[in-house]
């Protein structure tokens, strides 16, 4: 019991930025879903069983385009293709996590992934439960946000515009930490460079998959160079 409580205590501070971002974005999702005639029950169910923010927003726009199961599947694959990178990156970290592993894999969102690669549990805290609680807390925030948005959306008078910038800020901070943690900046530059070029070439709606392919090609071609400079 103590093992779990310590892990929860250690995990919580790492999730505070996600708390802010998920409550606001989750609420926005709940409000939109409600506006399509789907009650709070659907907000809870979708956030419980899908738990993928950008895909849940896309699903709302798809509600208006008619019922096309194959198309739905194809769009979901495209929007979520980046998860493959997260999975490959977490293969080692999730090794030996036992019964927690299925949930850790299920809950691997952009934000959970970013927090997990940027944080180590303090000494004496169980790594597996630490990762589990970060994932679980993040999902609780997301479900709570969507529920609140769905139920109270029309009563929110506090101006929350711009609050979701907390998630952008989270990525920027992790980016800075990563930059400082290594002398080998080639991978970071490959990530930023490929994404910027692909954003300009393919537009804002379609650049993620081309970016992933470019990144994969470059880190493969440059493997020797990256590994020889290794400090990663």
């Amino acid at each position, binding site marked *: 019991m103590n093992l779990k409580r310590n892990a929860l205590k250690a995990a919580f501070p790492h999730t505070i930025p996600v708390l802010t971002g998920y409550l606001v974005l989750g609420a926005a999702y709940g409000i939109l879903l409600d506006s399509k005639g789907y009650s709070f029950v659907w907000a809870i169910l979708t956030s419980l069983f899908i738990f993928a923010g950008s895909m849940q927003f896309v699903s709302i726009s798809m509600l208006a385009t008619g019922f096309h199961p194959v198309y739905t599947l194809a769009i979901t694959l495209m929007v979520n293709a980046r998860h493959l990178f997260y999975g490959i990156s977490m293969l080692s970290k999730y090794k030996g996590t036992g019964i927690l592993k299925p949930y850790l894999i299920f809950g691997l969102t952009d934000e959970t992934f970013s927090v997990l690669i940027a944080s180590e549990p303090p000494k004496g805290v169980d790594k597996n439960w630490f990762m589990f609680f970060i994932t679980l807390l993040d999902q609780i925030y997301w479900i709570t946000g969507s529920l609140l948005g769905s139920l109270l959306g029309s009563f929110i008078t506090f101006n929350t515009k*711009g609050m979701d910038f907390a998630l952008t800020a989270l990525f920027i*901070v992790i980016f800075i930490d990563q930059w400082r943690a290594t002398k080998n900046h080639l991978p*970071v530059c490959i990530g930023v460079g490929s994404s910027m070029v692909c954003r300009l070439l393919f537009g804002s709606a379609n650049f993620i998959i081309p970016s992933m392919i470019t990144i994969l090609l470059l880190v493969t071609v440059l493997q020797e160079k990256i590994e020889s400079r290794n400090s*990663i």
Partner: protein
Amino acid sequence: MTFTLTQSLIFFGIISLTTLATRALPFLLFPDHKEMPKYVKYLGNVLPYTIIGMLVIYCFKDVSFIQAPFGLPEVISTALIILLHLWKKNMLLSIGGGTVLYMLLVQGIF
């Protein structure tokens, strides 16, 4: 509701299962007991350093730098985050400061 109940369940069910598939695939291909190929191990080490940059660009994907306000709220807030973080090295302070400034900028000024 735009769909019938059954259609809605199928629609969200497909999204749920397909999302799970994209998350689970690498772990199904390389389970714990199997030796991971060297190349995959290399990717696992190097990809995190490339993805965060991709996510930052993703957050700015819809910001226009050629139309007013020329991405100024984003640029100014990002600059503050960088300065705060290099100075104090406190994650929550950097994120909190940057977010509050951004909210002030988009709500009050731009």
